[in-house]
């Protein structure tokens, strides 16, 4: 069967045409082929091993001890590797540009996940054992929401104290403040028109205005959101929240499958290339007329 793969068919043809000499040549060619196969197959195996090492990801799980070595791997890949050993799945609702390099030895799963996920948008969903209020079971899946975003204040009001916003208010320049928010990178996870981008205008232009009250603060919160929000009875204009991960497959599932398929094709392509090289080598080693 290997010979068919290599495009070389020792056998009857040689014997009919060349008799004993042909048999000798056949035996010689077969031995060469077996020898080459013996060289090539371990080589291909080694190539695979090297590739695994080059991936820079190794997970060892000896419950409850977990060791993880990762070098410039995506967070999703690291978590998937851990999940394969521990028993949870990973869902990415948005791609992340973050790469992970870490080395953790003999830590608990909690510690590892804390280090990996502390600053990441995510959710860990646990299996429920028995009734819903009974003790939770192990992690069922981890949902990654994509890159984090940060909120920053863009303008410091001239003449206003950085410590006392009421002072700025008294100076009547609070209205000039602008709040910028990096756009969410995950439209699957966050509303497209984050109301916070356009906080409700707060009338602070009157120097005699009283200090802000709790009520005004609450209303500012609520109305800021309402500007892009959903008004019951008037039609929703706030983008619907993402559906629970359990009921809706991630939007990039197709992309993930395509990527997996692409990598499988690459691996298969490497194998075929190796076999083709072996075939050429065999053909070149044979006497003229046998090719």
């Amino acid at each position, binding site marked *: 069967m290997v010979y068919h793969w290599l495009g070389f068919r020792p056998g009857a043809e040689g014997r009919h045409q060349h008799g004993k000499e042909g048999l000798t040549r056949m035996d010689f060619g077969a031995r060469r082929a077996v020898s080459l196969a013996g060289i090539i197959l371990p080589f291909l195996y080694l190539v695979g091993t090297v590739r695994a090492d080059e991936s820079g990801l190794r997970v060892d799980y000896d419950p409850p001890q977990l060791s993880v070595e990762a070098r410039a791997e995506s967070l999703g890949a690291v978590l998937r590797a851990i999940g394969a050993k521990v028993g949870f799945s990973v869902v990415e609702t948005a791609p992340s540009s973050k790469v992970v390099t870490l080395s953790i030895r003999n830590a608990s799963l909690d510690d590892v996940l804390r280090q990996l996920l502390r*600053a990441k*948008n*995510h*959710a*860990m*969903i*646990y299996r*429920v054992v028995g009734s*819903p*209020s009974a*003790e939770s079971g192990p992690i069922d899946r981890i949902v990654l*929401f994509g890159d984090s*975003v940060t*909120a*920053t*204040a863009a303008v410091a009001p001239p003449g206003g104290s*950085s*410590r*006392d*916003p*009421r002072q*700025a*208010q008294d100076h009547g320049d609070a209205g000039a*403040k602008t*709040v910028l*928010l990096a756009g969410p990178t995950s439209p699957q996870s*966050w*509303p497209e028109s984050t109301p*916070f981008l356009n906080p*409700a*205008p*707060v009338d602070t232009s009157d120097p005699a*205005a*009283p*200090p*802000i*009250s*709790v*009520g*005004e*603060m609450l*209303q*500012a*919160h*609520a*109305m*800021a*959101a*309402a*500007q892009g929000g*959903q008004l*019951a*009875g*008037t039609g*929703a204009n*706030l983008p619907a*929240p993402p559906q*629970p*991960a*359990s009921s809706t497959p991630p939007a990039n599932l197709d992309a993930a499958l395509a990527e997996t398929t692409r990598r499988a094709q690459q691996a298969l392509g490497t194998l075929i290339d190796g076999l083709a090289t072996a075939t050429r080598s065999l053909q070149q080693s044979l006497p003229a007329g046998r090719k």
Partner: protein
Amino acid sequence: MVDGREPSCPEAPSEAATDAIARQNPSGSPVVFPEHWLAHELLDGLTGLEIGAASYNPFGLTTRNVASPEGAEFYAEEQRAMGVEPAPVDIWAMGDRIPVPDRSEDFILSSHVLEHLPNVIAAFLEWDRIVRDHGYVFMIVPLKGALPQDTERELTPLAHFVECYRSGWTLDTHPTDGVPGGRMGHYHTFSPDSLTDVVDWMRANGLSDWELVAREDVDSKVGNGFTLVFRVKHTNSPPA
């Protein structure tokens, strides 16, 4: 009232506040925000407490509403001003002193409440007492600039939260200088990282053992806060 000012939490919205609502919600239609898929994902089927529930910001979970008696009428009026009936109150209590048994709830949920508590660590300890093992503390906290008056404030450092705790500060004793709204106003500002630091500090000091199980840097409910969800573990003490 440490600073001698009157509480700025009135019994009813000020005229200016009412005008602001009228300007910003001229239709007068009820304002109701969507529920939160993440809360449903984690908390459906469980029973818990919601601190400071508001009808215009529903979660659709099985909860009892804990509301502060101080300023209650104000908060009720504030909800009516949004065009909705106030959420019924089940337990009258401050968010950091809730009269329920130890480990009696599956979760505690709060949305835009934490910034109004003068002693965050004390509140967390109270919530840790109430939530059963492997239950949840689910919080949505305003982004630092959600309130314009918070934008220029410094992010409250961990050392301040620790000082609040060690000093035993309460509504009556926490300084209100620089606090927008004064008493019961925005005592502190937060980021997801700074609040996680508080929880980590509590763990490091043996006060609690909470595991971060969800984080949204921008909450997917309304979008002007961030979400942190912790799973409570009572590893060092037996159940009550």
